[in-house]
Structures are given as structure tokens and as C-alpha cells.
């Protein structure tokens, strides 16, 4: 027994190195989205430009679409607008989920819908407008339920309202070709 005890450090080290080895081949930043293959969470949020219209998860069913989380304050989101607009022209349905940052009263910030509407309209006019419409998530409730860590993020949702893909980061031609195009086409059929 005593003899075997001296082999314990060696055995522990071998065990550890197995994990170190497999760790080499996986990306530490990558994490499985918790909403994948689940239905879009229930919500009732207003349209950004026409606040009288209330969107719910049921109203969005019937056709596969991309739900793109963005904001005018987010530089990367602005950069992807042009390519998303191209996708829209190819017939991809894209719905915007507007990520409103919290207003800090201490810094004298007050939420002003009219100002926001103007700002968004101007931005989309300048950079291209990929969106069928924009849903305003003023208090970030749906964004929280979707497990969004930052903008931009994009969800691929099928006709039944099930989330099929969750992409963190911007969408560019390469990302679209490698990760989303095939999945989107298979949902279209």
C-alpha cells in the first residue's frame, strides 16, 4: 500500500492532463446558449415606431425569421446594418429587437421615446434598414429572458417560434455562409 501511495501524484497529474488536452481543442469563450431549441419566451412589447402596436411571441409565428438585438449606441450593430440590409433584399425576414440602455437618473438621463424614434429612423436611413419592424424592449425584459450578453446578437427562429440558432457577435458574409445560411434555408423549405 505504502509503495502505491507514491504513485498518487503521478496518477493525479495524468488525469489532469487529459482535461488539459481536450481543453486545447475547445474555445473557452464559447458557451452553449440556454435558449436553444426552446420556444421564444412569452412577451408583449410595443413597436418602436408605432407604440400602439403590441407584439407578442404568437404574432410572430408563421414564417422563419431572424431576431436581431441591436441599438444605435452599439458600434458593431451599426457596422452590420449594411450586410443585414443586403440579406433583406435577398428575401430574409429580419425583425429588430431594440436594446435600450438603462437611463441613469444620476447623470440626468431621461427616457424620451420621440427622440429615440428620430434617432433610429435617421440611423436606418443612413446605414440601410434591414428590419421589417423594430420591437422596443425598454426595460430589457425579453433581452434578459433570451440570455443576451451584449449587442449585437441574432436568433434564428422557425415558423413555430422555436429558437434554432443563437449567434453572439456581428453577422458578416462569412458568418452568414458558415453558420446561418444553411439553417435558414432548411427552415424555409
Amino acid at each position, binding site marked *: 500500500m*505504502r*509503495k502505491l501511495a*507514491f*504513485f498518487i*501524484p*503521478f496518477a493525479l*497529474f*495524468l488525469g*489532469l*492532463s487529459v*482535461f*488539459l*488536452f*481536450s*481543453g*486545447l*481543442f*475547445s474555445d*473557452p*469563450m464559447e*458557451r*452553449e446558449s440556454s435558449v436553444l431549441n426552446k420556444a421564444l419566451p412569452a412577451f408583449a412589447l410595443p413597436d418602436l415606431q408605432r407604440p400602439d402596436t403590441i407584439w407578442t411571441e404568437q404574432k410572430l409565428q408563421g414564417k422563419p425569421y431572424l431576431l436581431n438585438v441591436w441599438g444605435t449606441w452599439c458600434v458593431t450593430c451599426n457596422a452590420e446594418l449594411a450586410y443585414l440590409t443586403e440579406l433583406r433584399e435577398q428575401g430574409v425576414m429580419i425583425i429588430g429587437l431594440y436594446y435600450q440602455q438603462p437611463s441613469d437618473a*444620476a*447623470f*440626468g438621463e431621461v427616457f424620451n421615446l420621440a427622440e429615440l424614434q428620430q434617432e433610429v429612423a435617421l440611423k436606418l436611413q443612413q446605414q440601410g434598414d434591414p428590419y421589417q419592424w423594430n420591437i422596443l424592449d425598454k426595460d430589457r425584459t425579453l433581452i434578459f429572458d433570451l440570455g443576451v450578453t451584449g449587442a449585437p446578437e441574432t436568433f434564428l427562429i422557425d415558423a413555430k417560434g422555436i429558437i434554432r440558432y443563437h449567434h453572439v457577435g456581428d453577422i458578416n458574409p462569412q458568418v452568414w455562409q458558415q453558420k446561418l445560411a444553411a439553417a435558414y434555408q432548411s427552415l424555409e423549405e
Partner: protein
Amino acid sequence: MIAEYGQLALTFAFCVSLALAVVPLYGSFKGNQTALDLGNPLAYALFFLTAFSFWALSYAFWSNDFSVVYVASNSNSLLPWYYRLTAVWGGHEGSMLMWLLVLAGWTAAVALFSRSLPLQFQGRILGVMGLIAVGFYAFVLFMSNPFMLSLPYYPVDGRDLNPLLQDFGMIIHPPMLYMGYVGFAVSFAFAIAALMGGKFDSTWARWARPWTLAAWMFLTLGIMLGSWWAYAELGWGGWWFWDPVENASFMPWLVGTALIHSLAVTEKRGTFKSWTVLLAIGAFSLSLLGAFLVRSGVLVSVHSFAADPDRGLYLLAFLLVVIGGSLLLYAIRMNSVRSQARYELFSREVLLWGNNIFLLTATLVVLLGTLFPLVHKELGLGSISIGEPFFNQLFYYLVIPFSLLLGLGPWVRWKQQQVQPLLKPMSLVAIATLILALGTMAATQSIQANLALLGLLLGAWVGSSAIFELLQRLQQFGSVKQGLTKLNASHFGMTLAHIGFAVLVVGVAMTKTYSVETQVRMKAGDQVELAGYQFKLVEVYDLKGPNYNGEAAELDVSYQGDYVTHLHAEKRFYKVQRSVMTEAAVHARLSRDLYVALGESLSEDSWALSLYVKPFVRWIWLGGLLMSLGGLIALCDKRYRRRVVEQKDATEQKGAADA
């Protein structure tokens, strides 16, 4: 041209490392005197070639030679000359070259200072150092070559050094850290050489002690500087983040600390033999593991170099050979070792055993916290992250018994200690502890039963015990004055390091409990009060530096109407790397830091500012400094030089008898 010479020198150095790995070891096993005699010259050659190579890379940075890929990606012609030189170790390839330089430096130092060791033993140490060197030189030469050229299409200017690294703390933090990491290679080599010989008297422990102390001292200093750098440069007032790479440097430190204590037991009492060898292997293994974690990209960290799976694979294979090989050798050789020494339950041996247990538990906590997310994910259980609360909680529970033990340890004799004689001095220490802790608290804050009080009590216990013990020891020489000249340096070093630990504990507890901070919007002329201090924003103006633009804020601080200081905080925008850096303004006093970071401009004339008042935060680094100073003093102990010479004859005769 110079860069090519550097490349050439590095290639020669690799060849020399091959020779160093083979020749002295061959000599030591075959009893070939010529081969053994070659060890020292080879070690010196390795050092000089590597130093030349390092100089060549530095020259490429100095002269803005952007045909060297590494220079182009880590420097810029606008960078001030001192940052151009420190940019040499600002990226993966150059920092590996520095690693080689440090390794070659330690090897040459072993050759220089171990001439009094039996030649056979010295040959084995140099051989082991050579084996480690072969692995690292091959890695640099074939997988991360800093001398790679981009000719004929070289860039006109470079991509600049990461602005985070453009700071004084960063100039000396990595060299110190590497001195520590690689220094444990020497302890490791001593342990492996002892394993090869299969003879375990306490002599190897005596020889290994000064080397281990030196490595530990550098590592302590390196970690402390890193913490200080993060505090000054990251602009959020923290000093330790439990980042995986910080943990990677903390683990060898913990094991190294255990090793220093365990070596003392092995040397003085001839026991804990297999344990000490395992710790020596462990300290260096954890250094290697740290290098792997930083450079392979398996963990998410602010320190990570660009990840490359091939490099990771190579390093892992190297880890398997070095760590796996040495642990296997350990398992095979240690079977036959028996400790003869006897000791009672209440003795210094047992207390030092307790020290080792707590330090290793702490290591295990850090190791688990660092690697568990990786293991969890690779088992397919999903991503998790382990953060500050986990570490803080567990260290809280570990520090309490550890400190209590530490206050008692130095008083207890080897072999056996009677309880009776200790009662009087220990109750004196206890009284002093209460007075010190409550006094400090009453002087700086109001007396409350909280974490700060606990920290003060533990710190005062360890500190006053260390001082009383020193006084008592000095008096044994007749008078304190006589004792000062007669007591050996090791003892002073130990006392100072223990006081350093006490200071550190007090600093952590006070900072954690009493730090206050606030984020405010300010215009010029505005005044904000925090913890009794009035911060007045005088003005904010534009700033133009050599490779950055920015804004600077001037603040006046007063306390209850009395002017305290003027603070100057900057926010810099580095043009080439397009990144924003905060240069926090810090007014440091032993009792508190005032810390201001300039944030975003919120409108034409108002800015966001972060203000902090952090009591006793200096004590954290002061503690680290005292600890490494303690290491330095212990290192100066005469007996490390004298006894080795005395021993020489005895062991040589013994060696001759064996042969």
C-alpha cells in the same frame, strides 16, 4: 542584420543546451571526469549566447527594425525609448526569449555558485537544467521565434505596444515573475538530482535552500508588482482579481512557501524527506502549468497571449515529459526512503506540518477554482465560472487557523515542546495583540466586531509574536545588542517575512471592510464628499503625449477644510492601438489611498469620475515587500556559504567510497 545574429546565437544556444543535457549527466553516471568538467563552461556558454540573442532583439526594438515581425507587432516609432525596450517582453515570443535568458541565467548561477558541491551532484543538476532548457529552446526556436522576418514586404511602422503594458510596474513585473518561476527549476533540479542518486541524507536540502529562497523572493516581488500594476493601471481600484493567470502565479508561490518550510525540517531534522522532494517537483510543475495556461488559450483571462493550439500541444507534451517523468521517478525512487527522526505531538515538526497542510489546501483551492470550469466543460456539463466569492470564502477559513499557527510556530522547539514554559510569553503576546488591534481600530475607525477586527487581531497576533520571539532569542545571547550581531540572518529573515504576512493580512482586512467608492458626474468647480474628504474638480483639459491623446483632470482634495493634496488623473486614447486607458491619480499614505479615475465626458463641460478612499491598501504591498525582503535577508545567511564548504570534504570522501 543584428536580428539575424540574434537568431544565429539562439540556434547555437539550442545546440549548447543539447550538449548540456547530455554531457554532464553522462559524466555523472559513467564517472567520466572530462564530461563532468564540461558542465560549467557549457552553462556559461548557454548564458552568453542567450544574452547576446536577447540583446539583439532589444536592439531591433531600439532601432525600430520593423522588418522583424515581432517588433512590428509590439512596437511603434512613436513609442518612447524605455517602452520600446520593455516591449521586448510585451508579447508571447519576446517574453519566451526572456524566459530563456532567465533560465540560462539561473543555470550559469548554479555553475558559478555550486563549485563547492560534489562534482557528480553538480553535474546532475546542470544536466537537469539542460534537459529543461532543451524543451524551452526548441519551443522558442521552432514555434515562437521572435526573430521571424517579414522581408521583403516589411511594414513602415509598427502596431504599437499594448497600452496596458506602458507602465513602470510592467517594466519589472514580468522579469521578477520569471525569475521566480524559473528559479524553482533550480530547486526542481536539486530534487531530481537527489532522486537520481537515490541517496537521501539532508545535504541536498541544505544546498537547495538558498536557491529556493531566492526564487521565492523574486516570485513574491513579482506577484506584488503585478498587483500594484493592476491597481494603478486598470482604473478600478482593485488589487487582486483571482484571474486564472494570477492564480497560475499564486500556486507556485503557495507551494514554494510550503517548500521553504519543509526544506528547513528536512535539513535540520532529516525528516519529511519524500514530502520535500514532492514539493520541489510541485513548485516547478505549477510554474510550468502556469506557462501552459497562459500560452495555450485553454482559459479565459486578461493575461492570455494569442492562442495557438500547436503551441499548446507542444507545451502539454513538454509538461507530460517533465512533470510526468519526474513524478514517475519520484514514485519509483521514494519507495525505499524511510524517515528516522522521532518527534512528539507538540513540536515544531508538527506545526510546520500544519503549515504545509494549510498552504497545500490553499493551493488545492486555487487549482480547483482555476481548472474546475475547464473540467466541467470538458465533461460536457456546460460552462460555469468560479469567481471571487468562492476564493474569498475559502481563504477566509484558511487564513484564521493558519495565522494562529503562525503566531505559535516560531516559539516551539524541535522534537518536543513542553506547554508550561510557553504559557507566559504567549499570554504576553495575546495581551499585546488585543492592545494593538483595538488600538489601531480605535485610532482609525470605530470599534466594531467585523472582518477588519478579525484581520487586525490575526495580524497583531502574528506580528507581535514574531517580534517578541526575536527579542527573546536576542536576549539569549546575553543582551539584545550582542544578539543583534550573533543571531543568524535566517532568523531575522524569518521574523521579517512573518511580520510581512501580518501586515498583508491587516491590509487586506481593512481595505475589504472600509473602502468606499462613488461614481459621480462633475463639472469644473464641483465638489464631492467621500469619507470626510472633499474632492474638488478644478479643471479638465486636453492632453497630447508621444503616442496618445487624452484628457487630464486636476482635483484638489481637502479634509475637514484643510488642504490635503492635488490630484492629476488622465484618460488616454492610444492612436495606433485605438484603445482607451485610464491613468488613475493616487495619493498614497500608510493609512489610506485617495484614488481618482477619470471616466467619460458626459457633455460639453461635465465628466464621469470614480472616486475611492481605500484605507490601509498600501499595507498589502508593504506586506509583500517585507516578505521578499525577509527572503533576501535569510539568503544572506553565512552558513549557506560556510557549511557547504565544510561539507565538501566529507561528501567527497563519501562519494569516493561509493564509487
